C-alpha cells in the first residue's frame, strides 16, 4: 500500500517562500498568478496493513512527525 501525504502551510500563516515565488512569476510576465503557497509532498510505502489500520496509522504519523499542526495542515491518500 502507498500513502501520499500533502503538508501545506495553514491559511493564516505567512508563507515567505510562496510570496517570493509569486513575485518571481510576476517578474517573468505571469501576471495572472495570485497567491502562491508552497508545501510538501511525501510518498510512503506501507507494509501489509489493512486500510482502516493504515488510515489510522498514517494520521498518527502526520500528527506526530510529518506535519507541525501549529503551522501546517495535512491530508493524505491511500492507494493499493
Amino acid at each position, binding site marked *: 500500500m502507498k500513502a501520499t501525504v500533502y503538508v501545506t*502551510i495553514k491559511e493564516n500563516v505567512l508563507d515567505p517562500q510562496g510570496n517570493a515565488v509569486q513575485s518571481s512569476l510576476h517578474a517573468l510576465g505571469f501576471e495572472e498568478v495570485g497567491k502562491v503557497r508552497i508545501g510538501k509532498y511525501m510518498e510512503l510505502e506501507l507494509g501489509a496493513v489493512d486500510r482502516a489500520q493504515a488510515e489510522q496509522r498514517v494520521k498518527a504519523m502526520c500528527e506526530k512527525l510529518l506535519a507541525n499542526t*501549529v503551522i501546517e495542515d495535512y491530508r493524505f491518500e491511500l492507494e493499493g
Partner: protein
Amino acid sequence: MKFAVLVFPGSNCDIDMHKAVEDVLGEPVDYVWHTATDLSGYDAILVPGGFSYGDYLRCGAIARFAPVMNEVRRAAEQGKFILGVCNGFQILTEAGLLPGALIRNQSLKFRCHPVDLRVENAGTAFTNAYKPGEIVRIPIAHGEGNFYCDDETLARLKANNQIVFRYAGDNPNGSVDNIAGICNEAGNVVGMMPHPERAVSDLLGSSDGARMFKSALQAFASQAASAR
C-alpha cells in the same frame, strides 16, 4: 551547579555554549549526547544552536524524538532550568515544551548580525540578572527564526508574561509581536533565537549575554535556599 550541553548530530554551537559556562561561571559542564537517557545529575540543560539532523523535514522536528528529549521533558516538569538557543529553541517548540513555531524569515535571508533586544521578563531563571526593559546586544544567526503563534496563544503569552525578549530595533525575521524569546508558564524553560553564548566577552563585540548564565546560577542559589 552542574550544566549539560546537549549535542545532536548537526549541533554546531555546542562548544560555544560549553565555553560560555566555563568562562562566565566556572561551574562544571558536560557535553551530553542525544542518546543519553539520564539527566538527573544536571541542574540546567542547555540546548544549543545548529542544524540538528540537517534540519530535515522541519527544524528540530527529528531532534525532538531523540532519547534525551524524554529526560528534558522530565527535567522541565521538575523545575530544572532549560535554555534553548536558535535550533535549541526550534527543538523546544517542536517538542511542545514551548508554544508556537519558528518559520522561515520573512526576508528569506539568513540573518547573521548583532541585534538589540529588550528584556521584557526579567523574572525567569535565565534573565533575573537583567533590569526589566533593559536593552541588550546579542547576535542572531538564523534563516528560520520567524516566531509564529495564533492570536489566542499570543494573548496567553502576554497575559502570563511569557515574552522574555523582543527585538528592540528592526524585526530581523518577521516574528509575531517582535518576539525574540519566550518562556513556559513556570519560567524555568526559556527559548530564544539570539545567541547569548556568542556575547560573553567584550572581545566578541558584547558581553551582554553573560548575565543569562549568571542568572541561572543566581536562580539555582535561591532555589536551593528556599528548599532549605
